[in-house]
């Protein structure tokens, strides 16, 4: 029993990341009809927003600390972040400690801007081109984006820790009445799951309860008719692209403590996110989220020792096998509408 709980929990954080990326992919596909291979790169850029901010916050100048001496007996030179000068040491430390969550505030406008620029500058010219061309140009863009990041940040993963309060793990099992030490779960993963739930909830309510969202949903169903009503759907779709980029970006920001970001993390997630989108049903937002969590959990179950004894290596391929079976037996995926890309 506790093993099952543990695997479900383990699946949640990866599932959250899958769900967030797949949600953005589906938003873009559903609104603009574009298959965006650069979406993983947006996730990666988000993660590097967090890296950048934590670096910027600790930019320091050197002061001579008379109270300490170095090994030669001279007064020690100490690096003091500029932040201390502004907020004082105590507040400054807190801000540096919370760099990752604070990065969300930076990442949202930055990613929105990148998303809108991408759509206006590039994607818009590819609406009428075949899907193959869209895949190719966004694939090229993904390479460019990750190479730019590599140029500035190097090829090695950059550890970016979570705030100290969330650094440890807690014994989730005791909450459910299991013996202690059976279900240990890092706090930050729980935070990530809660964060994903909030973002997904936010996107859905935005689409459900605002006029803007209503128009976009109508446009996803039937773009031409909405256009005929005199509504400028293109502008709204551009904003949706920005939104999708922001969702991918903040998903990346929050993921940094779980996996130290490197320049190719986006590509690694991208392939699996496409699998998620396909399983969920191309163009179905609910399907993308559901499939994201389901596949995340499925993957973690497949990594259990008992399962691997029976089916060695299944954890490596389970998602692909599921995707292949789904595509062949139920091409519209779990929740896809009939007729959407169902050829």
């Amino acid at each position, binding site marked *: 029993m506790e093993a099952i709980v543990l695997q479900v929990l383990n699946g949640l954080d990866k599932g959250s990341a899958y769900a967030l990326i797949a949600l953005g992919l589906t938003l873009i596909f559903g609104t603009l009809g574009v*298959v965006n291979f650069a979406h993983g790169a947006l996730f990666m850029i988000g993660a590097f927003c967090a890296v950048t901010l934590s670096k910027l916050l600790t930019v320091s100048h050197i002061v001579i600390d008379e109270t300490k001496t170095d090994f030669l007996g001279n007064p020690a030179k100490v690096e003091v972040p500029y932040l201390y000068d502004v907020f004082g040491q105590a507040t400054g430390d807190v801000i540096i400690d919370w760099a990752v969550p604070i990065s969300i505030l930076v990442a949202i406008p930055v990613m929105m801007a990148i998303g809108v620029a991408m759509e206006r500058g*590039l994607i818009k*010219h590819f609406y009428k*081109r*075949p*899907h*193959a*061309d869209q*895949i*190719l*140009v966004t*694939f*090229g*863009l*993904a*390479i*460019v984006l990750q*190479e*730019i990041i*590599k*140029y500035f940040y190097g090829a090695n993963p950059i550890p970016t820790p979570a705030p100290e309060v969330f650094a440890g793990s807690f014994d989730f099992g005791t909450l459910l009445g299991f013996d202690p030490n059976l279900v240990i779960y890092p706090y930050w993963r729980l935070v990530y799951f809660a964060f994903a739930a909030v973002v997904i909830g936010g996107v859905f309510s935005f689409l459900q309860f605002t006029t803007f969202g209503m128009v976009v949903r109508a446009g996803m169903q039937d773009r031409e008719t909405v256009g005929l009503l005199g509504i400028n759907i293109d502008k709204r779709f551009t904003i949706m692209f920005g939104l999708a980029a922001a969702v991918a970006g903040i998903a990346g920001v929050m993921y940094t403590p779980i996996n130290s970001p490197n320049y190719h993390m986006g*590509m690694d997630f991208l*392939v699996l996110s*496409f*699998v998620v989108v*396909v399983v969920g049903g*191309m163009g179905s937002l609910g399907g993308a989220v559901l499939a994201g969590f389901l596949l995340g959990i499925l993957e973690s179950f497949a990594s259990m020792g008992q399962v691997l004894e029976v089916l*060695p*290596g299944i954890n*490596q*391929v389970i998602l*692909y*096998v599921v*995707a*292949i079976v789904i*595509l*062949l037996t139920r*091409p519209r995926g779990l929740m896809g509408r009939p007729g959407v*890309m169902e*050829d």
Partner: protein
Amino acid sequence: MLGLNARDLQILLLVAILTMFAPFFLNPFPVDSSLAQFNAGYPDLMQRFVIFGIFAIGFNILFGLTGYLSFGHAAFLGAGSYAAIWMMKLLTMNIIPAITLSIIVAGLFSLAVGYISLRRSGIYFSILTLAFAQMSYSLAYSVLTPITGGETGLQPKSNDPRILDGALEPGEQARASLFGMEMSSSYELVVSGWVFTFNVGYYVAAFLMLVSFYASIRIFRSPFGLMLRAVKSNQNRLGYTGVSARPYNLAAFVISGMYAGLAGGLMVAMDTQAGAERMFWTASGEVVLMTILGGAGTLIGPVLGAGMIKYMENIISKINQSVLESWFAWAPDFLQDFIVAVIYPFVGKGWHLTLGLMFMLVVIFLPGGLMQGIGKIGALFSRKKPNDRDSVAGSTPAAAE
């Protein structure tokens, strides 16, 4: 001649001359000159030119003709590599059985993958092939380690059975050969300042590339090829003319898979090792880049694209900061610093950035690839119609005879 019309024969001859005399063409600079680093005429790189050329020619038969974009062709190349290395370990270091088996294995593998993937089209097909390739890669890395060697890959060992070869002398290394001619042996021709290297492995691979290229011309110009182009043009309509598209697609898929297998087998013949990284999906992406960059659906484009990308990978990536500084040493310091700073991100380790940008520009402005660019430039200088270039669109069965 050879069942080709005059134009196609010219193209074939051109490619034949270029490949046969490549050791000269690719080494235009004397060894001591500062430009010697742009020489590409060393065996390792020349082998890669032609091997990736074969890979891209085959990929083009699927993507260029039918329009089905596979993101999983590296899996077939990898399968071919494993097949070849096993032949070398078990049977003989002679490359003929190795390459034969690599083509067969890749063909069977692509038959299975294609049979399933081709039940869907468009983006779904791309994702299915991607899923299959990633699955193969993951399996090769983990569970299949007894067959694939996992992370370390496979190399010939001195204690391999090699039934036909017999035991090695103590201290002797197993080298790939063709009836005694070792792939790695070379003849060097020194002409004053120039050194030209003629490598056995390169000529074997180049010969096979010419055969592959010839076969691809025949496929392009055949009624079979016409059907494949009809698939790309309007698959739906094709059904109403009484043609079943799926077996045609599958045939194209398997043929291109066999080309990939040949390329994989040749890689092993050259470097006698096989590893899972050859199956990674970015490797599949690379052949897509080559084909598009050169010009999908054209005969010669994929070869051109493969050559360009491999040249850039090897040459541009060698240009480092000090090389740049020496080039612009004539400029005033501030200008030199500026130029170097601007160019540096695009060369050396940054060559992927150049590649990505170039690829984007080609997809955006030249969907027909470099061949379309050449066609456009050609059209500026002659009165020929732009569609008179070496492309599918410009060819007709009427012109074939």
